[in-house]
């Protein structure tokens, strides 16, 4: 059952108006989903780069609205996925530079996986926190380190001292359990 989060025209109608070059429709889409796009980008790659990510995501929607296919999910999840992909790309390229710096000098140790997971947990919604607390520890760590930490499955395997295949499997079972838990919370579609 799809829960309507907004009064007024549906997102698909607004995207159709963006195809018609309506600035106001883009503004309404930004009003509805700009916060989600901004927040995930900021969480993954930091506020400074999040501005660039948000601009890229909404400018892309403006210039190529046909890339959004409502048959394959909602507008918010599509926008957030585009933002997440860009933010992860930025975070990883900076992480590479940080590693190079660390190799060149004797630098600080990164936080432990436990500390990082606890930090990411603070960025969750109340419902998100309750849902993620229902997951097994390995699932919770894999999802938070990947989705909010922007780490690859190979990096997570190193951080947690496990196999990459195990990490991927935990991400999958974690996402499925999360979906069920969020449905119980009544916050998912």
């Amino acid at each position: 059952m799809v829960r309507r989060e907004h009064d007024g025209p549906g997102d698909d109608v607004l995207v159709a108006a963006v195809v018609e070059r309506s600035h106001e429709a883009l503004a309404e889409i930004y009003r509805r989903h700009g916060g989600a796009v901004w927040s995930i980008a900021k969480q993954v790659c930091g506020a400074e780069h999040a501005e660039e990510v948000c601009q890229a995501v909404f400018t892309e929607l403006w210039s190529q609205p046909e890339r959004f296919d409502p048959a394959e999910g909602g507008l918010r999840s599509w926008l957030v996925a585009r933002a997440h992909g860009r933010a992860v790309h930025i975070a990883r390229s900076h992480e590479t530079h940080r590693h190079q710096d660390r190799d060149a000098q004797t630098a600080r140790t990164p936080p432990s996986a436990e500390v990082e997971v606890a930090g990411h947990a603070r960025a969750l919604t109340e419902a998100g926190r309750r849902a993620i607390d229902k997951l097994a520890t390995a699932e919770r760590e894999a999802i938070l380190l990947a989705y909010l930490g922007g780490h690859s499955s190979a990096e997570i395997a190193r951080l947690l001292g496990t196999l990459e295949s195990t990490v991927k499997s935990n991400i999958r079972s974690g996402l499925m359990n999360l979906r069920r838990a969020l449905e119980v919370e009544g916050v998912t579609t």
Partner: protein
Amino acid sequence: MTHPVGPVSDHPLDDLAAYAVDALEPAAQQAVDDHLAQCAACRAELARHRETLPTLASAEAPPSEVWQRITAAIGAPGLPDPHTGASDKAVPDRPTTGPPADEAGQNGDASVAPVSSLAGAERARARRPSPLRWAAAVAGLVAAASVGGAVGFALANSSAETSDIGSLAQQALEEPDGVLATLADSEGQSVARVVADDDGAFMLLEALQDLPEGRAYQLWSVGGPEPVSLGMLGRDGTNTVAFRLPPTITELAISVAPTSGDTTPSGGFQASGGVLQ
């Protein structure tokens, strides 16, 4: 490239989940991309993963700089921020840069008009199956745009109290490299110039005809795949108007439009010219 769709065990379900959270290395990501291109079941599973994720992280309103960057990139400077209602003013706040919006509206001048106008939404409404829904939407958008008294205008008109904008524009004109663009009519005559300095950009309409009531000049960015409205310039053929000139704009053009503005230019351009980068 096509692959037969195999039994469920052939679907890369673990990689697909990792793909949904952007946790794959490039080679593995490419393999999932290839599989998704020919597997509707996995596309549906990916969509389910992606629907779940945005509900996790709390959403906070983005800072106003984000909206300013977006509106500059799409050629709609001044469109009010939907999160704050604040309009990104074309010119630094000065008491005499122009009449307030309501005053300009009363004198019948088209100088302050919605950037892209709601005409586009109206046209879209005509093609959509649910006109009542659209009527409500348009009303809602008007209300949203009116927050803070700013109605999505890009350009600050100077028809009544020109002295300040006029003198700022003159100062900019006198600076070396101050002229960013010269717009010429179909006969090659210069009819308008764009000057810029630290205070902002100014459009100097110098040799256009005054337009009758109900018509106004409209400024467009025409360097991209299709013209994008930058706002209304009023109906005076000689006038100075302040505006924000996003750095991405390469070519400008002026059309004659109804006072509410066109969504696409009609009747050809009165003048056009490239912007010096």
